[in-house]
């Protein structure tokens, strides 16, 4: 049996010690003497969160399929262990071998949300790896970042040696081959970085210089050596049939946030909502073959013993073979009590029929995401959902026995007026009325329950709203107050509940999402002051960040509240994300006019993703 990095006496004094022992079912164990590349794959949050992430399992599986590579996992130590590791100078270790990360070839960090940035510094710090790439030498691992936040890597640029832009399945094989070869040849770290910069999708921040004008905006961003390309191209997987897929995912030791098999049924989305980064950067929308999905579902369930499978995608209702897949699962696992969960369904007659099969109507609630209260604003954000279809979905749901409804909205959207905000309350009222009008008294199992949740809109890179100013904290809080008040005025207000997101953490998210290289100073200072686990409300301390902005002499409003001209050079413009800038500009204009753009199945809008010759761009054309 393996020796653990932490002594029993430490494991017995911390919360959930099973987070740190590894050795799970399906974890990859290899003989380190027989491999060339040791890769530590990190999700910079606690074990239960990181182990719920599909992307990590995909890359872990893909890397470990290589005979020359041993990929291990690393997660953020929780604050209790963090304190002990600092006190006793215990280096951060990977779960499988329990050996220090600092001795690995690579530390790969998946960057899924902005509020984990200080946790990235924690990982580096506890690993005893210098925080800044410029301070690392041949003895240190190469630190590489990836994931959606790598689409604007600039705020993190000084902390990483490399970034991988796009879908990991595409270019990592070439990347690792290059590393293995150069390691054998005894090449230096710099020689490898120069070679890596020429692999499609790889960005080496040190090879680029940024310049800023008197007004603070970026004026130039260019490579400083010939090996670095002017633009870094997002990598796209076009052939799912031959792509690696984790048929035996690691089974977490303790209950993960997503304690189930995750099956990705399609990648990308045809909808083109203008606020949604995922809907833009994962284009084209690509369906996976249903026969392939059947096999993957069976393999994963049998190899893990999970009792639940989640069919994941950005918009599951758009998957054309959904019914066939569900029928298969029901038949194949008859009598074995396997549950199916289907997030992100649009509420209509078809999906209600599906949901009745997979959930207990009396206990569950239905989720609608109109995102905006008025039709005008829904058109601005290109959420192709009308009030009629929402009410019709609600009617069907109520007649089907549901009486709990959750509604998700955003506040602070571009062009939003107080009237738009109030219409959220009016929509909730109409839904309540639908219940009392449509469901006969004797069939009601109680009062209708409507939960309205609002988040604080954050403009993201590579969306048509990347130029838009964020609403100020004051405006956002005023809108929250206006909505609360308006809801109180509704006839059925007693059936309604209202939750809203905290403003402090979201405005920071806005700063990090569209920050440039100078933002790194603020992150480093906030970490130095003690910021960590910012995504966890009980550990988020806004005052540390306020201090960090002051110490770094940076103005958050410049990044969050400023309206950017379309002509401005954006910090992430050097990335070719697959969609053309002209498309985003056009969509931004159409948003301002309130024009709806049809979805990819209705009509091609020429976003540029067609050059990948995959998915919806070629459907019915070959």
């Amino acid at each position: 049996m393996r020796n653990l990095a932490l002594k029993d006496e430490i494991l017995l004094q911390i919360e959930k010690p099973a987070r740190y022992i590894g050795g799970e079912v399906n974890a990859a164990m290899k003989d380190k003497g027989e491999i060339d590349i040791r890769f530590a794959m990190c999700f910079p949050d606690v074990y239960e969160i990181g182990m719920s992430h599909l992307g990590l399992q995909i890359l872990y599986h893909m890397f470990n399929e290589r005979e020359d590579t041993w990929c291990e996992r690393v997660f953020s130590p929780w604050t209790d262990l963090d304190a002990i590791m600092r006190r006793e100078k215990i280096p951060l270790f990977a779960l499988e071998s329990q050996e220090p990360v600092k001795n690995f070839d690579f530390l790969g960090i998946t960057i899924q949300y902005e509020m984990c940035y200080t946790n990235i510094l924690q990982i580096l710090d506890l690993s005893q790896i210098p925080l800044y790439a410029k301070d690392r030498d041949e003895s240190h691992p190469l630190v590489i970042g990836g994931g959606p936040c790598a689409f604007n890597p600039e705020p993190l640029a000084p902390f990483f040696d490399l970034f991988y832009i796009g879908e990991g399945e595409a270019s990592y094989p070439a990347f690792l081959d290059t590393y293995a070869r150069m390691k054998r040849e005894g090449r230096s770290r710099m020689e490898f970085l120069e070679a890596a910069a020429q692999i499609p999708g790889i960005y080496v921040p040190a090879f680029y210089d940024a310049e800023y004008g008197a007004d603070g905006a970026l004026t130039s961003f260019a490579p400083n050596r010939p090996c670095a390309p002017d633009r870094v191209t997002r990598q796209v997987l076009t052939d799912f049939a031959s792509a690696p897929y984790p048929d035996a995912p690691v089974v977490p030791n303790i209950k993960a946030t997503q304690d189930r098999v995750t099956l990705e049924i399609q990648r990308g989305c045809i909808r083109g909502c203008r606020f949604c980064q995922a809907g833009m950067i994962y284009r084209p929308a690509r369906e996976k073959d249903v026969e392939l999905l059947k096999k993957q579902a069976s393999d994963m369930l049998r190899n893990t013993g999970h009792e639940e499978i989640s069919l994941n995608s950005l918009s599951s209702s758009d998957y054309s073979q959904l019914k066939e897949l569900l029928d298969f699962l029901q038949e194949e696992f008859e009598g074995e009590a396997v549950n199916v969960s289907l997030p992100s369904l649009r509420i209509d007659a078809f999906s209600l029929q599906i949901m009745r099969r997979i959930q207990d109507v009396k206990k569950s609630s239905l989720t609608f995401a109109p995102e905006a209260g008025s039709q005008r604003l829904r058109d601005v954000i290109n959420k192709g959902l009308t009030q009629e279809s929402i009410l019709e979905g609600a009617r069907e749901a109520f007649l089907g026995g549901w009486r709990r409804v959750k509604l998700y909205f955003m506040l602070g959207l571009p062009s939003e007026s107080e009237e738009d905000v109030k219409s959220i309350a009016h929509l909730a009222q109409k839904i309540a009325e639908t219940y009392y009008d449509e469901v006969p008294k004797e069939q009601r199992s109680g009062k209708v329950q409507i939960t309205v949740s609002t988040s604080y809109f954050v403009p993201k890179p590579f969306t048509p709203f990347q130029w838009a100013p964020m609403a100020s904290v004051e405006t956002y809080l005023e809108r929250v107050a206006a909505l609360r008040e308006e809801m109180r005025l509704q006839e059925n207000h007693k059936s309604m509940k209202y939750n809203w997101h905290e403003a402090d953490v979201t405005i920071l998210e806005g700063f990090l999402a569209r920050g440039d290289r100078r933002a790194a100073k603020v992150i480093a200072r906030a970490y130095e002051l003690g910021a960590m686990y910012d995504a966890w409300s009980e550990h988020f301390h806004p005052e540390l960040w306020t201090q960090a902005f002051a110490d770094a002499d940076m103005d958050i409003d410049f990044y969050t509240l400023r309206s950017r001209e379309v002509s401005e050079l954006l910090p992430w413009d050097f990335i070719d994300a697959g969609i053309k800038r002209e498309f985003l500009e056009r969509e931004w204009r159409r948003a301002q006019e309130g024009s709806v753009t049809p979805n990819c199945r209705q009509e091609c809008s020429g976003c540029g993703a067609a050059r990948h010759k995959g998915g919806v761009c070629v459907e019915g054309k070959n």
Partner: protein
Amino acid sequence: MKVRIKFSKRGPSRFLGHLDVMRYFQKAVRRAGIPVAFSAGFRPHMIMSFAAPLGLGIASDGEYFDMELSREMSSRELLCRLNEALNEGFQALSAKKTPEGKKHNAMAITAASGYRIRFPEEDRQRWEQMAGQMEAFLAQPAIPVEKKTKNGLKTADVKPGIYRFQAAQGEWDMLLAASSASYVKPRMVMDAFAEYLGTHFAPHDYAVHKMEVYANTGTEQSPVFVPLEDLGEDI
């Protein structure tokens, strides 16, 4: 048909808590393709119940759970399939058919647990010396121990729950009450013994290894302790 599985838990898996061990075996049983029975209802669950929970960090060679099968499977096949599905630290040791009914559940019939206390070799002398005081310790009229309860600290006499406490083969051997009415943890006994000797044990001065779980087939006054697995028969 109800079967009782005996298993061991060693090494890193000692740090999996009771609920996680239950989840672990639910998944293992599915991976093993064992025909386990499910409850009725919209969210059926496996009919499975565990004997007493094991403290975190303690190794054991005597853990048990019972499960209901929807069709018969031989002991041999059950063990084979289950061990195939288990990994590092877990091993299934026996699979026996047991009487039906809730009152025969492993949890319901558990009366005592056997433990071994192990010491680092370098401290051997100290421990052997102390062992000489065991008889006198047990001869006290009462052994009061402070227990944490919902209503704060309470003092309880654990003496009736110490069925055996002796040195054996360089280790200390304990048999302690483990029923719902009376439950004595090895650490309570060690702490009481330390206090009696006027000393103190740090938790890491010794390791606790659970050896077996017993049912009482005798009476309260003259108990007869039988390992849980012996109450079942091979299939």
